[in-house]
């Protein structure tokens, strides 16, 4: 049986991006009272696992680190077809950078057992470091292929994948177990179904904190992070109305200059 782990992140719903607030102290996005969705690229990671499950006998574990509301995201993954869910939730995990996040996820994957393949989205929509997947692979001492756009061969342990590389792609042969980070070109995630939601009723979500992972608390969260965000700024878009006076020629000339000065033309 193929043992698959899919790492998913609960990120702020992009549809409310203009309403996000930045915590002035932690320089992070508070996630407790905002709508969370599955990180879009992680949906492609889950879909890759689901497509494998259609072809082979497989067990899919969804692994998510986040505050308790992220449990809804795990439940959604179960409704989409994953078999079991694990939510890594502990105030000690808060403020983790990519390194500490990958460390925590890797510890959880070790506890789950020996996965054949770990899927991650290439990047998160709110962090976008692209480091977590490769760092998980490093902690687990597994090969990693980043930016996978196509799985060409997936029978047995010898896989062939195509991965983005600059303006082209590379074909990579790898041996499982491995970590793959995926792009949106890999597949088209299936939508939620009512029957899937009902089936998820009987599926289990397990919560683990830092005690369950068996390492001192200093290894996790902000304390375990070698990097931290010093400042974060919201992007502001403003619109300004200027009424142009004069003849048509004068107005056109003036408009060209304004656009040119603004770097548009």
């Amino acid at each position: 049986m193929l043992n698959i782990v899919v790492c998913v992140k609960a990120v702020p719903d992009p549809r409310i991006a203009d309403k996000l607030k930045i915590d002035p102290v932690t320089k992070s996005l508070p996630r407790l009272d905002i709508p969370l969705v599955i990180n879009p690229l992680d949906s492609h990671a889950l879909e890759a696992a689901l497509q494998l499950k259609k072809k082979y006998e497989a067990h899919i574990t969804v692994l998510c680190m986040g505050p308790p509301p992220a449990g809804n995201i795990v439940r959604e993954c179960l409704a989409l077809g994953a078999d079991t869910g694990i939510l890594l939730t502990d105030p000690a995990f808060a403020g983790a950078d990519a390194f500490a996040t990958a460390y925590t996820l890797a510890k959880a994957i070790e506890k789950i057992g020996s996965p054949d393949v770990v899927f991650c989205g290439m990047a998160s929509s709110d962090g976008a470091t692209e480091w977590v997947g490769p760092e998980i692979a490093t902690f687990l001492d597994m090969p990693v292929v980043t930016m996978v756009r196509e799985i060409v061969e997936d029978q047995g342990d010898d896989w062939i994948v195509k991965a983005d590389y600059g303006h082209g792609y590379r074909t990579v042969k790898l041996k499982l177990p491995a970590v793959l980070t995926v792009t949106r070109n890999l597949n088209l995630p299936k939508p939620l179904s009512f029957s899937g939601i009902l089936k998820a009723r009987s599926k289990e979500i397990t919560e683990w904190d830092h005690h369950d992972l068996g390492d001192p608390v200093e290894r996790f969260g902000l304390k375990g992070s070698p990097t931290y965000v010093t400042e974060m700024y919201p992007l502001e878009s403003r619109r300004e109305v200027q009424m142009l006076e004069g003849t048509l020629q004068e107005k056109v000339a003036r408009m060209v200059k304004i656009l040119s000065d603004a770097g548009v033309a």
Partner: protein
Amino acid sequence: MIDFTFTEEQELFRKAAREFAETKIAPHVPMMEETNRGWDEVDKELAEAEMFAVTIPEEYGGLGIGYIGRLIALEEISRISVATAMMYQVFGLGIEPFIKFGTEEQKKKFLPKFATGERLATVAVTEPSGGSDPKGCRTSYKKVNGNYVLNGRKCFITNSHTADAQVVLAVDEDNPDAMTCFIVEKGMEGFKPTHEEHKVGMRGCNTGEIEMKDVEVPAENVLGGEGKGLKVAMAAIGDVGRGGMVGCALGLQQACLDASIKFANERILYGKPISNLQAIQFKIADMKIDLEAGRLLGYRAAAIQDAGGRSSNEFAVAKYYTTEAAQKAAKMAVDIHGGYGCMDEFDVTRYLRDSFVLGPSAGTSDIMKVIVSRWALS
């Protein structure tokens, strides 16, 4: 303490329905508006999204999600297309008499196929002489050799041309007090859909007439028992028909509010977005208040239904409130849009037209008041 929050599962139902509406229905709306026709695959798409299975019990191939789930689905579909929500709601109305009054054989024969969308159902009560006064029914039946022969005409029937099985209310030719519901199936000799209506709104949702000329209906197609037709039809319309209109109205209210907020934040007047103007803020507040109140009324009635109770009266209140509110919301949304609110490329023009069709469907607001006053005085 009453808990008014949706469960995690219900939130997922909403998400699934919203994704379906936004990805599968929205692209077809302009074509529906232009041609007044549904897109070819609408029934198939609704079936693939398991929409028809929502209220059908699991033992008959459904999902058994229930009526809160149905209301959630309807609200989300209507937010994108009231016309599609109307089609869907009436397919559900057609299914309901089979669930509540069907014999075991009828349930086994029809419900699994309704659940997969292989067959589609509707209810045909309204006649040229009226809909809310079913005792004015002229469509008649006569028992002949153990079967029944139907003659008559029904009008304003949603899904008249697309439904495969229609629950038709008819009066005994020899006893005007006896009314019976019959399952009239596509292909029965003498039965045919005829005229298609051209409505002011909900364009693309099929509404039309059906005609029955000496249609011989087998005895096993009597639904709910001979002479029990009024009870069958009224229970379905009262609980599920009115409930469905509440879902359509809530979705339209939300669409009006969303469009108004978007426009009011983008439209600059006097150097500021018009959302800064109190006149606009008050309209948006009115819409929001009506929507919140309507949701409480509608979902409470659906919760009663899910608990196994009758909720015709509660849905009469909710239907009155939400369809009236939808009309007000659409008018306010158009007002907020100013001149743009008169232009077809802005959705609010469609919302205004659609809102007027919500009123009479499943009983006008005045009829709702008759029902509510009877309830209050009883």
